[in-house]
């Protein structure tokens, strides 16, 4: 076998560049996540919503908006991201399960993946998920989806991955979604504290009659 120093150099350069890209990705994502998490925790959403209604010249709304609660910093943000991603996946699986156009879909595997993911989401939300348990749940769901995918491919019908791609309208497949999920869940369980992380909760807006006194401008800091 002939040594190829030039080829080795190119490979080394490519590896180095890939490593740089990975570090860059991490840097940007961590910065963005911490910014969003802190903003969610410190911003006065009630005042912000009141300001939006004022700017829209719409009737007064007394806003009862609850910001994401939980510990400071990126901790709750990571859990919220994982839960958000789980919600998306569960919703996508629901769509596949409910679609009546693919009768030979291996629903049991998809149903199993859905149940595992739903249980994981509940545990993350409660703060009761262990790291090992969470990662095992992700692996179990991924395995179930892989089995479903394989079985459908063998039967030459549209695979769950293809169905999800159709649902999303983009080129994301189940493997990529599960890979992203693993990434999010790993980050979430890494920081789970004894008090348990909290979730972004739905906001309620209670309308009442009357004028619209501008309370204060939100987030002018």
């Amino acid at each position: 076998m002939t040594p190829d120093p030039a080829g080795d150099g190119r490979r080394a350069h490519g590896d180095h560049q890939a490593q740089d890209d990975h570090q860059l990705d991490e840097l940007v994502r961590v910065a963005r996540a911490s910014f969003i998490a802190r903003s969610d925790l410190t911003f006065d959403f009630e005042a912000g919503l009141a300001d939006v209604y004022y700017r829209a010249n719409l009737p007064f709304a007394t806003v009862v908006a609850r910001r994401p609660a939980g510990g400071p910093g990126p901790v709750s943000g990571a859990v919220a991201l994982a839960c958000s991603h789980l919600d998306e996946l569960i919703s996508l699986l629901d769509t596949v399960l409910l679609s009546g156009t693919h009768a030979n879909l291996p629903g049991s595997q998809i149903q199993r993946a859905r149940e595992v993911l739903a249980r994981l989401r509940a545990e993350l939300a409660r703060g009761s998920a262990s790291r090992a348990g969470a990662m095992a749940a992700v692996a179990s769901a991924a395995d179930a989806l892989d089995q479903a995918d394989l079985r459908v491919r063998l039967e030459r019908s549209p695979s769950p991955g293809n169905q999800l791609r159709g649902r999303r309208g983009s080129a994301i497949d189940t493997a990529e979604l599960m890979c992203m999920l693993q990434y999010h869940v790993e980050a979430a369980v890494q920081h789970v504290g004894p008090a348990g992380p909290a979730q972004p909760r739905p906001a309620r807006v209670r309308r009442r009659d009357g004028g619209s006194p501008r309370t204060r401008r939100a987030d002018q800091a």
Partner: protein
Amino acid sequence: MGEDEFAALYLQHRSALVWYLRGHGASQAEAADAVQDAFAYALRDADQVSDRRAWPSWLRTVAFRCYLRSVGGRGSSGQDGSGHDGPAPVTVVCVPELPDKAVAAEPATDAELRAQEEFVLSLLAALPMQQRRVFTLHYEGWASAEIAAQLGMQKAAVRQNIARARSALRSLLMHDSVTQGDFS
């Protein structure tokens, strides 16, 4: 869109939108102001967007135009490539929810995280406009096809802009690590 739904939309996207505009060089106050305006437009024009999955794209486009207008009216002169003034029309791109890839990798003090955020924002702000727009959306988890549809570009141009932005940021990081020590 009901009030509860709008409030949920506000809770979910407000902070990410502020980051998006900060990445374009807006100050915290400018970004917050433009985002408030964008949500006000959303509240008034809620009936124009029937598919709730279109809101993330709609809000980003409108918030960006609001920001450009607030800093000198350039939004109406076509700097955003639209040539339109105001919030409509907007190219709508549907995704279920934004797949937010952001994640906290290492525990750090609040001061360190803040410094890191400002550092990243300064890096993004140093990019040319088009690369910045593409790259910021890329890090929010949008696929190339979705970015292309949102910005009215070809997919190949999106990928090219991402590659160029990466290259530019690598150079900036290398320069920074030489002048200030390794950031990470």
